[in-house]
């Protein structure tokens, strides 16, 4: 049980790191060489990392060291990040001019590396660095993505606001360190959760401030209202394939980080924080969908839709790992399932925009889509599948994702203090899915119902983009018909975040968690081995 932390558990990360450096180095080669190899190399690196991850299998009973801890959550995040990462590379296959493609692909790989590190981080500092490693390459990606003034504008905008969010996040983490006296995530709870809980208040004021700031900082990464203001502008400015990546990678990292932070608090949340997240979730769903209704630019519309999807995921986050009984209660598993499905379906919608040009312009507005169904029936079918999945419509995986999220909220057990608000939130979410249908349908209406035959639409990007689109849309059906595998993985991953919670149906108390954990001396060096408790 007390297995040691082994460096080979980090081999997917190392493969990505080496691959990213190699791709970056390739950028110095001749243009013809880059054109042939850059995207293929990135694709190969990702495939290799994915194969190694799957081959290593789900980690069990491994230790933590170097501020890293490889858990089933890491495994799950690796799998979905690398799979969707592959799709991202496919969709971006011929994106920037050839001489910049090496750097471009390496930025995608670096960003993915950040996601992977976020998933294994067990230290507040490592978590911060990992999150920034996700974000910083995306600034470069946006700027490189197309030769357009708007791309530069959105890169700068994203950079400044991202830097501010990073500052807020770092500030919050420093408060947490002050309150806990340690940066090791699984030991934070011992320091911050007050010993008088549940009789007295759960958190001291500095822990509370730290938590608030962290939620704000990560709220920016997942584009939750009111931290969303950058999203529509940035998404509109960047080229469509990049936007697909932009709407997924920071979001995945942000949610995984939020899971880690909440786990650090043993999911003991004071009522104010619960209400804060409740309000953010409700605002994010409703605001995202209502603002999307007003758009005529498809990219802006999808930007607002991705904001709304963050709102749905926040519902599951608020439910937490064990908030009720029964098999459908697990909010974290629902979130993890949803984020995987969301990554593919959202990317698919952007992939269609990326695979055609109207005259010499990129596809952007609803009018640009007119007639595309007759010009490219199969590609448009892929778009339709992804859009129906975003809508949460059967028979697609998006439907099951919504089912899990809302079911987790409905299944909160009777004694739970936050049950009523959670059910209200789920109903707000369900109603929002109907609102969302109104604007998703406008995309489909433009694509299918015009009289035009789309003669001025020219395919760009070639076969890899088409393949990317196909691989985004086909899994929507596959995951609808056979969801069991992914759900089981998501549940395993979720078991990690609730490892401290021994008594189902009630939130864990400080004393229980202290017993369950047995923290070692927080020296922060590699002697800090931590057995992953077998809670399942």
């Amino acid at each position, binding site marked *: 049980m007390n297995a040691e932390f082994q460096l080979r558990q980090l081999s997917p990360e190392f493969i990505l790191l080496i691959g990213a450096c190699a791709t970056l180095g390739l950028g110095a080669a001749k243009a013809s060489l880059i054109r042939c190899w850059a995207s293929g190399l990135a694709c190969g690196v990702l495939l290799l990392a994915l194969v190694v991850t799957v081959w290593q299998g789900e980690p069990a009973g491994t230790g933590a060291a170097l501020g890293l801890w490889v858990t089933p959550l890491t495994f799950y995040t690796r799998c979905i990040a690398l799979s969707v990462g592959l799709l991202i590379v496919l969709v971006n296959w011929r994106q920037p001019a050839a001489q910049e493609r090496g750097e471009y692909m390496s930025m995608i790989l670096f960003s993915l590396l950040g996601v992977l590190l976020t998933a294994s981080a067990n230290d507040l500092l490592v978590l911060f660095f990992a999150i920034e490693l996700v974000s910083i390459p995306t600034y470069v990606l946006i700027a490189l993505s197309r030769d357009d003034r708007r791309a530069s504008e959105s890169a700068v905008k994203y950079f400044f606001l991202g830097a501010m969010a990073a500052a807020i996040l770092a500030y919050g983490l420093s408060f947490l360190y002050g309150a806990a006296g340690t940066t090791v995530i699984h030991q934070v709870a011992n320091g911050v959760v007050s010993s008088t809980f549940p009789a007295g208040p759960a958190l001291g004021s500095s822990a509370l401030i730290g938590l608030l700031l962290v939620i704000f900082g990560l709220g920016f990464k997942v584009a939750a209202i009111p931290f969303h203001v950058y999203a529509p502008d940035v998404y509109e400015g960047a080229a469509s394939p990049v936007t697909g990546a932009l709407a997924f990678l920071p979001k995945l990292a942000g949610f995984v980080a939020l899971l880690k932070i909440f786990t650090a608090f043993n999911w003991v949340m004071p009522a104010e924080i619960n209400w804060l997240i409740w309000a953010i979730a409700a605002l994010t769903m409703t605001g995202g969908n209502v603002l999307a209704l007003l758009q005529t630019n498809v990219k802006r519309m999808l930007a607002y839709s991705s904001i709304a999807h963050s709102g749905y995921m926040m519902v599951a986050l608020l439910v937490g790992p064990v908030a*009720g*009984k*029964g*098999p*459908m209660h697990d909010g974290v598993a629902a979130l993890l399932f949803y984020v995987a499905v969301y990554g593919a379906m959202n990317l698919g919608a952007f992939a269609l925009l990326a695979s055609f040009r109207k005259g010499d312009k990129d596809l952007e507005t609803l009018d640009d889509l007119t007639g595309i169904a*007759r010009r490219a*029936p199969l590609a448009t079918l892929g778009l339709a599948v992804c859009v*129906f999945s975003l809508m949460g*419509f*059967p*028979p697609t995986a998006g*439907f*099951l994702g919504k*089912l899990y999220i*809302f*079911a987790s909220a*409905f*299944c909160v057990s*009777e004694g739970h203090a936050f049950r009523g608000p959670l059910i209200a939130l*789920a*109903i707000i979410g*369900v*109603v929002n*899915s*109907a609102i969302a*249908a*109104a604007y998703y*349908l*406008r995309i*489909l*209406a433009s694509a*299918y*119902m015009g009289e035009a035959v789309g003669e001025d639409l020219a395919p760009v990007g070639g076969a890899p983009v088409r393949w990317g689109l196909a691989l985004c849309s086909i899994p929507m059906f596959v995951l609808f*018909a056979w*969801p*069991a595998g992914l*759900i089981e993985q998501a549940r395993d991953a979720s078991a990690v975040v609730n490892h401290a919670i021994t008594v189902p149906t009630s939130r864990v108390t400080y004393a229980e968690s202290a017993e369950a954990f047995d923290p070692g001396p927080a020296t922060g060096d590699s002697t800090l081995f931590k057995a992953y408790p077998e809670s399942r």
Partner: protein
Amino acid sequence: MNSWILTAVVFSPLVGALLLWLPPRGDDVGVRRSALFYSLITLALTIVAIVRFYAPETSATGEPVSYRLAYSTGWIVGADPGSLDPQDRAREIGIAYRVGVDGISIWLLALTSFLTPLAIWSSFSGIRRRVREYYTLLLLLQVGMSGVFCSLDLLLFYVFFEFTLVPLYFLIGIWGGPQRRQAANKFFVYTLAGSVLTFAGVIYLAFYTYEVLGFVTLSLEELSQMGQQGLLAPPVQWWLFLAFAAGFAIKVPLFPVHTWLPLAHTEAPTAGSVILAGVLLKLGTYGFCRLSIPILPAASFELAPVVAVLAIIGIIYAALAAWVQTDVKKLVAYSSVSHLGFCMLGLFSLKVAGVSGAVLYMVNHGLSTGALFLVVGCVYERYHTRDIHKIGGLARPMPWMAFFLVFFTLSSIGLPGLNGFVGEFLVLLGTATSGSVADLRPAGPLGYGYVIPAALGIILGAVYMLWMCRCVLFGPLKEPPNTPDTSAGLAKDLTRREITLLAPIALCCVFLGVYPKPMLDSFETSIREHVLRTSVSSFHATAGDDSLAADVEGREPEAVAGAFDWVVPGGGLPVSRDLPVAVAVGSETDGGSAVER
């Protein structure tokens, strides 16, 4: 036990829709013919299913099975939840692929399989662009509709129920009339807005089954047993009834939420209207009949007067609205709203007569209104207008059309001897006798007071339908300039294809009007067994007052069962097998209080 036939019926159109992309590009004739061929294969499979349905079938333990031709397999979990014991079930999400039919759904399935080939065939001349996509969507629509009627799992039911929106959205939006985009969007968003609330209800019901039974189940069979045994607390039933009604009432459509229907009907292509009126509207009434009434008996009983009043308002209001329409198609659309009001009235009489009348009404309405839309489509193809003021006296140039229009009008307004009459009569009979307490049966929720305005609706129905016939068929000949348009291989009167389309529907109408017994027998068994079966405890939970409880406790069990059994003569509690109930429900008499804890 496990029968493949229903799965084949449901998914054969899907295979057909995929195969439709095989004929070479530009070969519209081949596409049409193969679409018709695939839908006929489904019809043949349905006939096989009906034959097998009547073969005696017993379960592994030798008991007669309640749902025939059943098939179930795991879906969201790996294994079939039915094969697990309660401890294992507690850990799993009890959502499975379960299909099966009873005496109600088999005929609605048959209606679907019967109308779809006709709808496909009727489109041969009208649809001239994007042909392949058109027939693909029609076949996909059939998958959704058949799936709803075959589902025995609530989530599967919901999935198919929702899926029907997608093909119809495109059918209206691409091949519809001038306002097609608006109509398609209104149709989609309107119905989706209702059904997401149903979705919330489904999830809550799943959670509630866990609370009560100790495992999650969405099997319709087990859910209705829960409802019948009174394991659902009345407040929960109320909320669930409202949530289900939000989706189903919009689909039916019930009075205040019917406004999407006239627009959708008017703009839809002919085949879309036929399917919409013929089958899709029945998904709503079928939902009430299959889910709301059996699973939520207490709430259905208490809310029945409300539903009935809305239904009657719908009957009268839609009839008056139909009267003033100048667009023939819109007139028929409003007549649908009016007729579905009768259906709802019969369902919520909660008597065998009323419910079987309502189910028969569903089939009848599918046949006669579907056929009316076909006839109107034939006229529209020739004259490019449906305005009553622009056409008239068509009986002279189009005698065949006139024959069928009059025939289906009479069928629709309930002329004795044709199908409409039987359904209407039973609905009114059930409603009128609903309040009687003969044979110690408890009084149903409705009574004579509801029959009088509904009967007024029948008179109004005759008025506006015959008025429409007079305007279109008789009087001086009125034709718009440059018509009739016979460019698509049409003749002045109905072609042989069109006559062949309408004749089988007419034959069915006559047969059902003269000899409805086989179908009614099949309905009745299933209604007694699945829809209106309830037991003392559920009724006890309904009333919830002490006097009744005291009353119940003071009697012999048999007498009690007889007194509170609504429909089963002889009074035995026809509960075939009990659920493994986690919460102790001791005797029937304290079931209600156990739930209310």
